[in-house]
C-alpha cells in the first residue's frame, strides 16, 4: 500500500501541472465549435452578404493552386470557410468568405484565433509544432496521459478498500490538510470513469505517432505505415490522369451524400483533386444516436458514391477509432453531455491542484520543512492562477482588440497576453506568501471571467445574448466565474475554521520556519514552560 501511495504521488506530481492546464483549457474546449462563433467580432454595420460555398471554392482554388490538391470546406450559411496546406508557408491556412473583397480577391484579414489557441493549450500545452514529424507538445501530453492513467489505477487500488466511507467524507475535522485530502478523494472517486476515459483516449491520440513507430520497428515492420494509411483513410490518394472535370455545386454534393445516408448531419467536406476527374469528395459528419457517431460519404466528382462509412457499415478499425474521439470530446450526446464534460473538466482541474498541494504538505510533514515542497506549492499556485487568469485575459483581448486600431494584432495578443500573465504570476507566486497569493488570485479571478460577457455586451450589444453560440459561451464563462467564487468562499471558510499548514504562511526552509501553526506554538510554549 505504501508503495502504491508513493507511485500515485510520484506520477501525480510529475503530471499534475500539465494536466491542470489540459483540463482547464479542455473544459472550455468542449465548446470549441461555439467558441469559434463567439470569437468572431460583430460590428453594428455589417459588410455585404459574403459569397457562397461554390464561389469561395472557385476563388480559393484559382488564387492558391495548393488548395486544389487537398482542401477542407467548412459549410456555414453566413460565412463558409476553406482550409488547405499552403506549401509556401508549410502550414495550414484558413480563408473565410468574408475575407474576400467585392472583386473576389483574398485579403489576409486578421482574425481571432482564440478557439485554436485554447485547443492547443489543451492538447499540447500551447507548445508550437515547428513542422517536425512528431508533434512534441502532443506527444508530451500523450506521455502525461499515460502517467495519469498509472496514477488513476494506483489511486483506485489505494482507495478501493475504503471507497464507500470516503465517498461521503468531505469534511475537514479541524485540519486544513484533511480537507484537501477529502476533496481530492471525493472528486477522484466520483469522476473516476471520466478520468479513465480521458487518460486512455488522450494517451492513444497523443502517443499515436510514437506507438506506431515502435510497433513498426518491433512488431510489424515497415509494412505498418502503408497498412495504417489503408485502414484509417476514407479513400485512397488521388492518382491524376490529367483529365479535368467541372466540379459539382456543393448543395448537390450535400444532397447526394444525404441520399446515400439520410440521417447524416454534415460537419465538413474534404475535397481531394479539385477539378480533377480522378478526385473525390468526402462528406464527413455524424449519425446522431451513437457514441461512435462519425460518418463519411465518399463521392466521385460526378456524385457517384465510392464508399459509405457509418455506424453498422464500417470496418472494426473505424468502429473502434470513432469512440476514441467522441468519448474524448464529449460530442456524442448533445448539450447535456457537453455540459457534463465541462463540469467534470473543471472538477478535474481541482483534483490536480489538490493532489499537488497534498503532496507538498505530506512531504513537508514527513521530512520537515524543505525548499522543494515550498517551491512546488508556490509553483503549483503560480501556474494554476497564471493559466486561469491568463486565459481570461486572452478572451478579453480577443473581444476588445478587433474594436481598436490594434485589430491586426488580435491573434498574437491572445497568446502574448496569456504568456505574459502566466510568467508574471509564476514569478510573483515564487516570491509571495502562498496564503496571501492564493487569496488575492481567488479574489481577482472570478471578476476576470465576469468581465468577459460584460465586455462583449458593451462592445456588441444584444448580439452577446441573442445569438445562440454567444449566449452559451457567455453563460459558460459566468459559470467559470461562479465556480471560482465558490472555490474562493470555501478557501476563506477553511482558513477561518482551521489553521493552515505552515507551508502556506511565508518562508519555510531549513533553519527558518518563521511561521508556526497554532498547535506548534502551543507545543513550543508548553516546552519552554516546563523547561522553566
Amino acid at each position, binding site marked *: 500500500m505504501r508503495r502504491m501511495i508513493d507511485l500515485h504521488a510520484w506520477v501525480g506530481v510529475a503530471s499534475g501541472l500539465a494536466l491542470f492546464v489540459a483540463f482547464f483549457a479542455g473544459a472550455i474546449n468542449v465548446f470549441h465549435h461555439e467558441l469559434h462563433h463567439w470569437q468572431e467580432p460583430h460590428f453594428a454595420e455589417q459588410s455585404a452578404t459574403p459569397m457562397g460555398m461554390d464561389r469561395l471554392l472557385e476563388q480559393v482554388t484559382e488564387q492558391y493552386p495548393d488548395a486544389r490538391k487537398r482542401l477542407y470546406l467548412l459549410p456555414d450559411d453566413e460565412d463558409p470557410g476553406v482550409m488547405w496546406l499552403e506549401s509556401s508557408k508549410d502550414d495550414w491556412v484558413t480563408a473565410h468568405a468574408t475575407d474576400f473583397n467585392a472583386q473576389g480577391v483574398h485579403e489576409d484579414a486578421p482574425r481571432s484565433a482564440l478557439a485554436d489557441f485554447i485547443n492547443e493549450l489543451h492538447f499540447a500545452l500551447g507548445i508550437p509544432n515547428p513542422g517536425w514529424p512528431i508533434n512534441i507538445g502532443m506527444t508530451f501530453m500523450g506521455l502525461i496521459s499515460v502517467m495519469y492513467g498509472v496514477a488513476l489505477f494506483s489511486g483506485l487500488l489505494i482507495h478501493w478498500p475504503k471507497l464507500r466511507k470516503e465517498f461521503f467524507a468531505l469534511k475537514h475535522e479541524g485540519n486544513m490538510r484533511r480537507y484537501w485530502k477529502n476533496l481530492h478523494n471525493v472528486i477522484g472517486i466520483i469522476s473516476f470513469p471520466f478520468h479513465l476515459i480521458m487518460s486512455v483516449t488522450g494517451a492513444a491520440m497523443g502517443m499515436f505517432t510514437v506507438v506506431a513507430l515502435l510497433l513498426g520497428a518491433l512488431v510489424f515492420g515497415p509494412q505498418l505505415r502503408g497498412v*495504417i494509411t489503408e485502414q484509417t483513410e476514407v479513400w485512397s490518394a488521388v492518382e491524376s490522369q490529367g483529365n479535368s472535370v467541372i466540379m459539382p455545386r456543393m448543395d448537390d454534393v450535400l444532397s447526394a451524400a444525404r441520399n446515400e445516408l439520410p440521417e447524416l448531419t454534415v460537419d465538413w467536406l474534404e475535397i481531394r483533386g479539385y477539378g480533377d476527374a480522378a478526385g473525390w469528395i468526402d462528406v464527413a459528419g455524424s449519425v446522431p444516436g451513437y457514441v461512435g457517431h462519425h460518418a463519411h460519404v465518399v463521392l466521385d466528382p460526378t456524385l457517384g458514391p465510392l464508399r459509405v462509412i457509418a455506424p453498422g457499415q464500417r470496418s472494426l478499425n473505424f468502429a473502434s477509432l470513432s469512440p476514441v474521439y467522441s468519448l474524448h470530446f464529449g460530442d456524442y450526446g448533445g448539450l447535456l453531455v457537453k455540459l457534463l464534460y465541462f463540469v467534470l473538466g473543471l472538477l478535474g482541474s481541482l483534483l490536480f491542484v489538490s493532489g499537488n498541494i497534498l503532496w507538498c504538505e505530506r512531504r513537508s510533514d514527513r521530512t520537515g520543512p524543505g525548499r522543494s515542497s515550498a517551491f512546488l506549492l508556490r509553483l503549483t499556485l503560480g501556474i494554476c492562477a497564471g493559466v486561469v487568469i491568463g486565459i481570461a485575459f486572452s478572451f478579453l483581448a480577443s473581444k476588445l482588440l478587433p474594436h481598436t486600431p490594434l485589430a491586426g494584432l488580435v491573434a498574437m495578443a491572445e497568446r502574448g497576453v496569456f504568456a505574459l500573465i502566466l510568467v508574471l504570476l509564476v514569478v510573483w507566486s515564487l516570491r509571495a506568501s502562498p496564503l496571501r497569493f492564493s487569496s488575492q488570485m481567488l479574489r481577482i479571478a472570478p471578476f476576470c471571467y465576469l468581465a468577459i460577457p460584460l465586455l462583449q455586451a458593451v462592445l456588441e450589444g444584444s448580439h452577446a445574448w441573442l445569438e445562440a453560440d454567444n449566449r452559451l459561451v457567455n453563460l459558460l464563462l459566468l459559470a467559470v466565474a461562479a465556480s471560482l467564487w465558490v472555490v474562493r468562499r470555501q478557501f476563506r471558510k477553511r482558513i477561518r475554521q482551521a489553521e493552515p499548514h505552515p507551508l502556506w504562511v511565508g518562508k519555510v526552509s531549513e533553519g527558518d520556519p518563521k511561521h508556526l501553526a497554532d498547535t506548534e506554538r502551543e507545543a513550543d510554549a508548553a516546552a519552554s514552560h516546563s523547561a522553566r
Partner: protein
Amino acid sequence: MRYFLGVLLSLPLSLMLIGLVAAVLPMPWHGWLVLQLIAAIVLWMLLALLVALPAKTWPPLIALLVGNLAAWLALQATPLYGVGA
C-alpha cells in the same frame, strides 16, 4: 528513478505482448489495429503499475528487461514482421 524506468521499459514490452496476441489470434492483424493500440496503452499503464509493487527496486526492472528480450525473441518466431499484411 524506478518509476521512470518502469514507465520507459513497459512501453516496448506492452507493444510486443500485443503483437504476440495478434500473431496467435486467428484473424488478420491489420483488421484490429486501433484496438491493438488501445490495448497496448492500457497494458503499458498496468505494467508501469506492476513494477511499483515489489519491495525491492531492481528485481522488477530486471524482470522488465528480461520480459522485453523474451517477447522480442518470441516475435521472431512469428510471421508478423514484414510479411503479415
